[in-house]
């Protein structure tokens, strides 16, 4: 009797197993087909964007890259000979190296300052709820609604020698001579931070919102003060956001043209400005192209280096 029962159970199990196999097998097949089709649909949607990107960005960029290895001809612009001279000229000239260093320096300082001022803002917005949160987000984004040129001229009014800040300080008698605020690296950085900080806020906010409150509670429960919880849990968990924001802010900053032109003037020349000079004023396209590529190269290296430093402390987060 027992044997019979066991046999029945065994048979039942077998039938169940093969049934399961059959079922899962077929569902997997269906899933695969569906997935394939879905992927195609998704690609169809991407094609227009991709086409624009390839034809109007990658291919021209490639031509520019080739051009940067050509000689300069005063009459036709682009000469017929191949040469490394454009790159050698840049590397061997302290003036151009100085411009490169200034550009990267402004980029790094801008990034650092935006991180410092954006974090508390992002923290408060991430903590806020409902309507308040929407209003605060809108407030942070509002600078983006105004033309960059207008915002820069706004800073000119504030920072110039007889501008609002200098005249107020002199009236108060705190200074005799106006401070050289405008047309300096300082004014460029101030303008850049103003323009770019929404990107950083949004990026940090995103990673703050992904943190589970119970993780913070766990930290406190284990004996950590609020400050300790921030430094050992919140901050490490928001490094990906800080990194994403930094990449955006840094690349936008080193490649920006309007802000340094208006707030830096001829004294604070940056890479985009001298590229413009070569291409539009001197009509030296090969050299302009070379400068452009050096900027791309340096910016990429800086970002890679930066990500290496950050990734050291965010191993587990990357998996998340």
């Amino acid at each position: 009797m027992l044997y019979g029962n066991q046999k029945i159970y065994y048979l039942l199990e077998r039938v169940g197993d093969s049934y399961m196999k059959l079922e899962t097998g077929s569902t997997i097949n269906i899933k695969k087909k569906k997935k394939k089709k879905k992927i195609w649909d998704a690609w169809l949607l991407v094609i227009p964007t991709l086409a624009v990107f390839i034809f109007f960005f990658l291919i021209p960029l490639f031509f520019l890259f080739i051009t940067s290895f050509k000689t300069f001809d005063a009459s036709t612009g682009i000469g017929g000979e191949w040469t490394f001279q454009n790159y050698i000229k840049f590397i061997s000239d302290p003036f151009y190296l100085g411009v490169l260093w200034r550009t990267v320096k402004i980029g790094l300082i801008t990034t650092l300052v935006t991180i410092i001022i954006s974090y508390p803002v992002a923290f408060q917005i991430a903590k806020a709820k409902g309507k308040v949160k929407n209003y605060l987000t809108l407030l942070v984004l509002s600078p983006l609604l105004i033309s960059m040129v207008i915002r820069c001229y706004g800073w000119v009014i504030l920072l110039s020698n007889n501008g609002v800040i200098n005249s107020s300080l002199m009236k108060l008698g705190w200074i005799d001579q106006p401070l050289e605020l405008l047309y300096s690296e300082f004014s460029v950085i101030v303008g850049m931070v103003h323009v770019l900080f929404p990107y950083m806020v949004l990026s940090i906010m995103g990673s703050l919102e992904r943190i589970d409150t119970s993780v913070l509670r766990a930290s406190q429960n284990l004996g950590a003060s609020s400050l300790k919880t921030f430094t050992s849990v919140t901050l490490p968990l928001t490094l990906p956001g800080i990194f994403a924001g930094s990449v955006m802010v840094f690349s936008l900053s080193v490649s920006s043209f309007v802000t340094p032109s208006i707030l830096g003037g001829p004294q604070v020349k940056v890479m985009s400005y001298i590229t413009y000079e070569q291409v539009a004023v001197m009509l030296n396209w090969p050299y302009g192209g070379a400068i452009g590529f050096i900027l791309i190269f340096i910016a990429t290296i800086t970002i890679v280096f930066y990500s290496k430093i950050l990734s050291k402390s965010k191993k587990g987060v990357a998996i998340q």
Partner: protein
Amino acid sequence: MSYLKIENLVKTYNKTEVVKKLSLEIKKGELMSFLGPSGCGKTTTLNMIAGFLDVDGGKIEVDNESVQHLPPNKREMGMVFQNYALFPHMTVFDNVAYGLKLRKVTKVEIKRRVQEVLEMVRLSGFEKRYPKELSGGQQQRVSLARALVIKPKVLLLDEPLSNLDAKLRQQMREEIVEIQKELGITTIFVTHDQEEALAISDRIAVMFEGRIEQVDTPADIYNHPETDFVSQFIGEVNRVRGKVLEVYENNKCKLFFYGSEQIVSIHSKQNSEIDFFIRPEKIQILTSPSNKGDEIKTIVERKMFLGPKTRYFLKIEDNHIVADISNTMINPNDIHQGSNVFAIWKPEDLLPSRKGR
């Protein structure tokens, strides 16, 4: 005698009291469950004990010291969260060592204690893994180890098993009890799963709408529910109605149930109607009348084979009841749908309802 003492605890959200003057005493080394449906205030109460929520009234004492004014990081309570709440950027070792580092324990000692506790939760060798590389059960074990390693005064478990699948849940709850008894740590276990609470607790506090309905051992909660809510929430019950035919001395009444007469220990008045609860496994069925006059004629509406027992859905007049009968007592093949059977129960198994009295 009590180690953790809660007195008239109150919590109010938007003028609604979600915890209403709750009082409870938990003995040292005891495993107390907070059991109730969602929204009954059990997690809110736990969060107040842990210090994550401010108390709007009342007192919380641990070892005769008032703690409700302390921030969570000064309360020395170990908490295990429903979603594990491990630090995703730290390895298993660093997660467990976190609380020890904060307590300025030496490196050697940290290593020893982390290894010891990981052994206890059977996770030795997982030190270098990150939480995302572990299964749900393993993550919950790390979470438990992290709470235990600091040797907390009280261990708080907030629905720790509800994210695990059924089999693992059972296994984990046995492990939790084993560890809890081994360490003799005073523990609060919050759950909405009555089976879980009945299986592991020393005592259960059944909560409903911000109040404690009953605090008792699992057996007493099940067999002697003090309120209607407890009788209906714990286990399954049938509701039957009886009419008092005669009132005797020493609180006994003769009651009339659907054509049968029984003498029940209850205090009541002549001709009043009383609702009773009775558990499905306390009902027996007979295929032929017993001729004692205590059987009730029913019709089998449906039956459900459940392995060791069979559940019969019976119709008594316009009332429906279920009876769970062991298959060793009655062969389910002998009872057919639509046939007449006779239900009987012992008068002492009837749980009088407080409302219908």
